[in-house]
């Protein structure tokens, strides 16, 4: 898994590629946590490069979402693959996260 972080005008963008599983989900959790702790609470996670995500990855994103929602922030998802979207749907997370088909739409939604 690789995480690329960019500061946009209103949004912190995380572009993730590869696999998110129990061997590395904590890295994603820490990256999100660090951003949120330093006041970056408007977050887009671009999942277009994620080929596989297990429940360990979902757990970190739900934890981060809870944290930003304590304030006025939000964490929105962009461009999950068909497979990853099915995982989100099975866990009922498609009604918990705002999910956009493209990164541009997710970033533009803030």
């Amino acid at each position, binding site marked *: 898994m690789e995480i690329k972080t960019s500061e946009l005008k209103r949004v912190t963008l995380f572009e993730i590629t590869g696999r998110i*599983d129990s*061997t590395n989900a904590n890295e994603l959790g820490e990256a999100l946590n660090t951003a949120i702790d330093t006041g970056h609470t408007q977050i887009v996670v671009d999942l277009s490069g994620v080929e*596989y995500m297990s429940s*360990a990855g*979902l757990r970190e994103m739900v934890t981060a979402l809870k944290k930003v929602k304590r304030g006025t922030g939000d964490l929105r998802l962009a461009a999950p693959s068909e497979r990853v979207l099915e*995982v989100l749907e099975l866990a*009922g997370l498609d009604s918990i996260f705002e999910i956009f088909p493209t990164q541009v739409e997710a970033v533009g939604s803030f």
Partner: protein
Amino acid sequence: MDEEYRMVIPGILSKVPEVCDFVVSVARKVGLDDRAAYHCQMAVDEACTNIIEHGYGRNNPGGWIEIICCDKPDRYVIRIVDDSPPFNPLLHAEPDPNAALSERGRGGWGIYFIKKMMDEATYAYENNRNHLTIAKLKTPKNLAATRGAGLETGTPVRPLDKGYWEIIPNGRLESNTAPGLQSVLNGQIESGRVRLVVNMSDVTYISTSGLKVLVNTWRRARERGGDVKLAGLTPHVLEVFETVGFDQLFGIYHTVDDALQSITDEAA
């Protein structure tokens, strides 16, 4: 005898991706499609992660996990064996996918995904070991469209309902292309797929060599209790069949759906 594939890993998280690759490669080998293979991967990943994190304990390596993948005629079975303390994950309370964000805890989803994504899951504690057995059925929905027997004939083979398989040759079926089709059809028959519908709609021409291939296959399928039906013949190809009287031999149908429909009618 069913084909078995086996792997043993030490009970540490960094080894789990190797199990995932193993399970996916066997899933593809037995014919599952991307989605079904993904489900198998995720179920095994979640099961192994739970064994390592809760069974053995993150800080207590030394245990092992054995994964046995078995290719059965109608299903892909994966058995996960470990010797951590007895624990039946299938009895674990399930999290609620309708829960609001504030009601969501951090855990419990792994087992939920195993149950949702696999068609079967059973647990047994035997010989002082946990055995979790999960399976994906080889229904048409879970199987990939395969290229016939790995030949470069470009003849797609795909599962239909009622245990039938559709073979889709194309182009001119004559002396130089007939052997390729024969290999594809032989491969089907030998792997136990004896109920075939040959979709002829893209076959533009058929010679006696081509006819011979279909008759050979029809005979071999019949000997094994199967059948070969033909569908979608172009008028020219149909005329060839009629000229030699083979339209009396084969069940010939306008479409693949018509061919399948006829099977219900026969049964009824």
